[in-house]
């Protein structure tokens, strides 16, 4: 029996809807005077972060604490522990302390998968972002945000994103957020379009379940949600695009471009935003931008995932890929 969340591609439509519905109920806990549930009392969760990501770690930590889990934070930043032996040894050390689940962020694609399938540890593994591979809870919170905005908080319960048109813009090549979102949004019935300069799209993208375009302006009027991905300035040095100015002129979202979107359409950003690069301050601060909501929703989604994976005697979420391995 697998108790892991490694990839958004492992989730069935029903799994994903169950997580989103559960997260809606979790979200209501935040409205209570005591924002805490006893559900994971006596369970220990370690946040094993080999990469610096304060916001993701804090989000998981808040979710774990709201479910009354005991939380251990392990931040192994820098190159001294980036060696492979350290992942195995560190995980085994933590498990020896009686950890029930490992939330792992790692710079190497596949590290959480290895942790879950190599027999190194018995604990449940939740992928909090691995290299340029996957970031499933980010995709779930994005889908949650889209469903709330486009379908409705209560009317969305039990529903997927059938027929919603969602556009992802930016550095698809290096983005685990993009990979997870393409998988999950497709599973939920959405029509996904990727927009990026050709240099920032992976070879092989043509096999993904989505459309690909190099032209943002023609895509905007046909989008119910536009998700901007961070573009790191250092990519410029590797000749992925000529200059910051040229990038933002062709692929950045400013007020004029936002006006081309349908009235109901929202702008999303997983953060951290690079203002002036992929998004202007005007767009970032507008009511249509869900960036802050996404952070709030992240806690609810992570509570839902932790509850469904750890709350019972076996997980309530099926995992096709990891199960096949056994």
């Amino acid at each position: 029996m697998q108790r892991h969340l490694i990839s958004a591609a492992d989730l069935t439509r029903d799994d994903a809807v169950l997580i989103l519905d559960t997260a809606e109920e979790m979200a209501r806990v935040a409205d209570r005077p005591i924002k805490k549930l006893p559900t994971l009392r006596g369970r220990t969760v370690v946040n094993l972060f080999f990469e610096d990501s304060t916001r993701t770690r804090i989000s998981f930590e808040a979710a774990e604490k709201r479910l009354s889990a005991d939380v251990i934070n392990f931040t192994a930043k820098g190159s001294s522990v980036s060696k492979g032996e350290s992942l195995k040894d560190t995980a085994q050390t933590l498990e020896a302390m009686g950890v029930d689940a490992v939330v792992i962020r790692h710079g190497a694609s596949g590290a959480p998968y290895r942790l879950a399938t190599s027999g190194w540890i018995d604990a449940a593994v939740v992928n909090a972002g691995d290299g340029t591979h996957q970031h499933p809870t980010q995709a779930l919170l994005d889908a949650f945000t889209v469903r709330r905005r486009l379908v409705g908080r209560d009317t969305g319960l039990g529903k997927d994103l059938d027929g919603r048109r969602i556009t992802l813009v930016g550095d698809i090549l290096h983005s685990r957020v993009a990979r997870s979102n393409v998988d999950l949004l497709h599973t939920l019935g959405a029509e996904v379009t990727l927009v990026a300069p050709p240099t920032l799209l992976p070879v092989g993208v043509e096999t993904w379940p989505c459309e690909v375009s190099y032209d943002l302006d023609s895509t905007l009027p046909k989008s119910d949600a536009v998700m901007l991905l961070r573009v790191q300035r250092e990519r410029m040095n590797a000749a992925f695009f000529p200059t910051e100015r040229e990038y933002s002129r062709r692929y950045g979202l400013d007020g004029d471009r936002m006006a081309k979107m349908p009235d109901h359409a929202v702008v999303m950003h997983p953060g951290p935003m690079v203002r002036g690069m992929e998004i202007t301050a005007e767009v970032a601060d507008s009511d249509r931008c869900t960036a802050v909501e996404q952070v709030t929703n992240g806690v609810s989604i992570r509570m839902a995932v932790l509850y469904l994976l750890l709350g019972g005697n076996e997980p309530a979420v099926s995992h096709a890929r990891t199960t096949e391995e056994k």
Partner: protein
Amino acid sequence: MSKTLIRGAKVLGGDPQDVLIDGAVVEAVGRNLPAEGAEVVEADGKVLLPGLVDLHTHLREPGREDSETVLTGTRAAASGGYTNVFAMANTFPVADTAGVVEQVWRLGQESGYCDVQPIGAVTVGLEGAKLAELGAMHESAAGVTVFSDDGKCVHDAVIMRRALEYVKAFGGVVAQHAQEPRLTEGAQMNEGVVSAELGLGGWPAVAEESVIARDVLLAEHVGSRVHICHLSTAGSVEIVRWAKSRGIDVTAEVTPHHLLLTDELVRSYNPVYKVNPPLRTERDVMALREALADGTIDIVATDHAPHPHEDKDCEWAAAAMGMVGLETALSVVQETMVDTGLLDWAGVADRMSFKPAQIGQATGHGRPVSAGEPANLTLVESAYRGQVDPAGFASRSRNTPYEGRELPGRVTHTWLRGKATLVDGKLT
């Protein structure tokens, strides 16, 4: 000297014959040879091949004796039916001087399991900047004829040109590890559909093909010969085919694993499948098999690359590249080439013994199985099928991608100059 009679062996897959070994040479090949005074090995329909020759082996000594030594590596070679291996230069220190190559050569002599022919580095420290003393290595006791920076590409076109020219003076050959370094920065696996999905840095086919294209043109221009290591893509096959049709003196090798495995296996993120060059697609595999069958690719070379357990028991990005191969090579070739009808056993003898010996100028190896030839022989039970169990490997390392996989054929006997190094599957 003692005599051995191998009775009823299908020499190169032909009709059963007897082969009589006297001392270090084959005395006679024929039917119903007399058994008097000879130890008899009942071949019973097994296939008798000339001792295999591997043009591409990493023995790791000196420097990484935790993964392999000349002794353990040659024992692995004998287990796999090899009588001669060419030891790659990327040791610590690098085999870029006469001193180091002589050391490796002597260790091989002492081991007694398999002849070891050191390969010399093309450039000092494999750094691609300054030619190593190629002539001195050739003139040393090791008599180096093959030069390679394997593991690294001689990427500088001028250095490559000079090396190709320089070795002409003593009939050497440069074996190129074709990998354009800038196109493969941070590369972790074949670039394509699977890498896009897994988020692992892509290793484009063009990084290999562009270097091969450049080098065959350089070889043509300076009138030298060039050998291409571990060719792995369909495009590389096309370039070599074109070069040969143009009369360019190029030879090429393919590894057993590139004849069988594809990048789909990387989905497991198990670093046992991490190798340089990377596993490619099904289309590439099929093109490589076809090219080996039609002679575009001249030889099979193992690229036997032992690594200690901890270098593979980790996440993909942190893992070392390479697979052991000496002890499974013949089985994989049988699976992919013989059992598929692409190559007969005579063809196997050609690609795994005659031709590699010829390219590497290995005297006494890769000779026909006939009277008067050195008794370097390998007996293969081709009807066998079984699961690969790394626990039984003679190699010090276990990083095989075939663990638990069922493969055909096993080497039961190996003779090095008439001396049995492997008897009934057991090292002597």
